[in-house]
């Protein structure tokens, strides 16, 4: 066949492969337009994350009671007060409550808070023109030997406060950052020794070379395993949650840090090593005085960079059971709670950008 014929065959083959690929992946660009209405509410919700929520202001007064035994002490309070006919009660007993000094003519509710703090509503009421109310309630069947009767009166004005979603997202975000930190720390602990053993320029003699080869192999094998698969395995092993994420990120970090570290070691100036060796220093002393001072800045830079990557990665790892913000985001998405999901997405974006910026600054500083 001529060179021209070959070229023609190659082009035909490429076209055929492309056409087949188009078919099996069911590419239909028209759907992007015809189905746009499906994605519109989602995009709209993503642009409206739940950050603040409007809540009515309330007046709250709690009366602690004991179920059997002496009544607990009352803390003196200013403002609205509630008095109970008895504060040493048993289950099923009727108690009369008299409230004073609340906002006048406002709706209220009476809540029973048990020993664990779990609330249940007992009654509703409205305050009179002087801001008082009078109410009889029965002590419900409850756990523990104490509880609280709480009067909550709803005021006309409302207040903005961080939404429950934001609080949860922030909590999980902190968890994620620390998950990434612990994963990175685990990576460092194992990667440092492995990187010294796996640095070509420190390997001497047959034993040294064998150790070098082994360390390199271990690092390569670890690196070839996808962190998502690791996370799945560990989620089965130690249960869904942040610990599984730490383990998955840790194992992955050992491999990638180990490689970066040993490359940093291999890139150092051999001159000082030769000079310190020439003074009759032992191997460990050579490492301490000629190798370590040369690699510390890079090691710090790589570690921070890894932490940064691990924060990103841990969001994805959360999807497969690694805990943290990713797990929360996946739950929101599965429940089609797009506004809540949006809150998580924005939080991730913000934190990742911040980490990126900070790690770049620190790297600039140390190198």
């Amino acid at each position, binding site marked *: 066949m001529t060179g021209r014929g070959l070229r023609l065959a190659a082009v035909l083959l490429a076209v055929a492969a492309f056409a087949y690929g188009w078919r099996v992946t069911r590419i239909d660009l028209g759907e992007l337009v015809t189905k746009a209405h499906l994605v519109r509410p989602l995009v709209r919700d993503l642009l409206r994350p739940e950050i603040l929520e409007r809540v009515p202001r309330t007046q709250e007064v709690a009366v602690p009671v004991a179920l059997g035994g002496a009544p607990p002490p009352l803390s003196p309070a200013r403002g609205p007060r509630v008095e109970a006919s008895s504060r040493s009660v048993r289950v099923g007993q009727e108690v009369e409550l008299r409230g004073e000094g609340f906002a006048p003519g406002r709706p209220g509710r009476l809540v029973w808070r048990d020993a664990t703090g779990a609330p249940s509503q007992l009654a509703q009421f409205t305050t009179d023109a002087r801001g008082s109310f009078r109410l009889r309630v029965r002590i419900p069947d409850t756990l523990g030997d104490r509880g609280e009767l709480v009067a909550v009166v709803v005021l006309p004005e409302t207040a903005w406060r961080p939404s429950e979603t934001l609080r949860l997202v922030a909590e999980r975000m902190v968890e994620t950052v620390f998950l990434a930190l612990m994963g990175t720390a685990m990576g460092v602990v194992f990667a440092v020794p492995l990187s010294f053993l796996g640095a070509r320029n420190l390997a001497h003699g047959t034993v040294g070379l064998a150790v070098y080869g082994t360390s390199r192999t271990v690092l390569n094998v670890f690196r070839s395993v996808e962190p998502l698969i690791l996370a799945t395995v560990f989620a089965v092993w130690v249960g869904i949650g942040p610990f599984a994420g730490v383990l998955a990120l840790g194992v992955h970090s050992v491999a990638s840090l180990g490689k970066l570290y040993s490359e940093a070691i291999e890139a150092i*100036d051999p*001159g*000082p090593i*030769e*000079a*310190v*060796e*020439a*003074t*009759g*220093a*032992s191997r*460990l*002393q050579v490492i*301490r*005085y*000629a190798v370590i*001072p*040369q690699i*510390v*800045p890079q090691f710090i830079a790589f570690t921070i960079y890894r932490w940064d990557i691990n924060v990103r990665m841990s969001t994805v790892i959360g999807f497969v059971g690694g805990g943290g913000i990713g797990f929360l985001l996946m739950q929101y998405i599965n429940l089609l709670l797009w506004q809540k999901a949006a809150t998580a997405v924005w939080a991730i974006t913000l934190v990742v950008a911040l980490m990126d910026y900070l790690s770049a600054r620190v790297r600039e500083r140390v190198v």
Partner: protein
Amino acid sequence: MARPFLKVEGLTKVYPGGVRALQDVSFEVARGEFVVVIGLSGSGKSTLLRCINRLVEPTAGRVWVDGVEVTALDREGVRRLRREIGMIFQQFNLVRRLPVLTNVLTGRLGYVPAWWSLVNYWPPDLVQRALDALERVGIRDKAYVRADQLSGGQQQRVGIARALMQEPKLILADEPVASLDPATSHSVLQYVEELNRREGITVLCSLHFLSLARRYGTRVIALKEGRLVFDGLPSEIDSHRFRQIYGEDAVEVEIA
């Protein structure tokens, strides 16, 4: 000559890859000599110096230093031998991120327990000696400065102070002034010369410029393509000898 201080016999080095850097080199050096090694780039000067403290493993031949057969030593023996041989390098080879003082102290590593190094502990008397060594080379005020903040000449003086810490009986200097300007070159070589004259430390020093070899050497040996082609007094190198060593087209360059 009575028992020579340094004896090299049939020294040969073939690098992996087949480069014959040294071929059957033999010579003797008496205690207290200042021997300059000259030769073109690639003639094997660095290899020769490194075979003497076994930073390079010779392929064949034998070396004795002060009665000890260097080429027969085991790892521990080599380590002990190196403690007594100071080495000075063209690129100074200081640990750039460490303070000058620590660089000087590393000259003593062969004598201190390994675990001291883990916590970077140095006993006060050694610190004092390191400061004295810096005093001798005129840069005591730089003791706590990071090594890479110093000029080339100052760095090489730190290199000399590091060698001094070893209280060596032999100094190997591998083109110690090749990265320095002429004036600085002289001041550095004068420190080496002083150690040679005052303390009787034997010096084996490779140099690029024949004028420097004539000025500082008590004896000159010349290498060409790994072979010893001259061994004699500096004054014996006339233009004929010069062309023998450096090739027919070479012109001698003076350094002030």
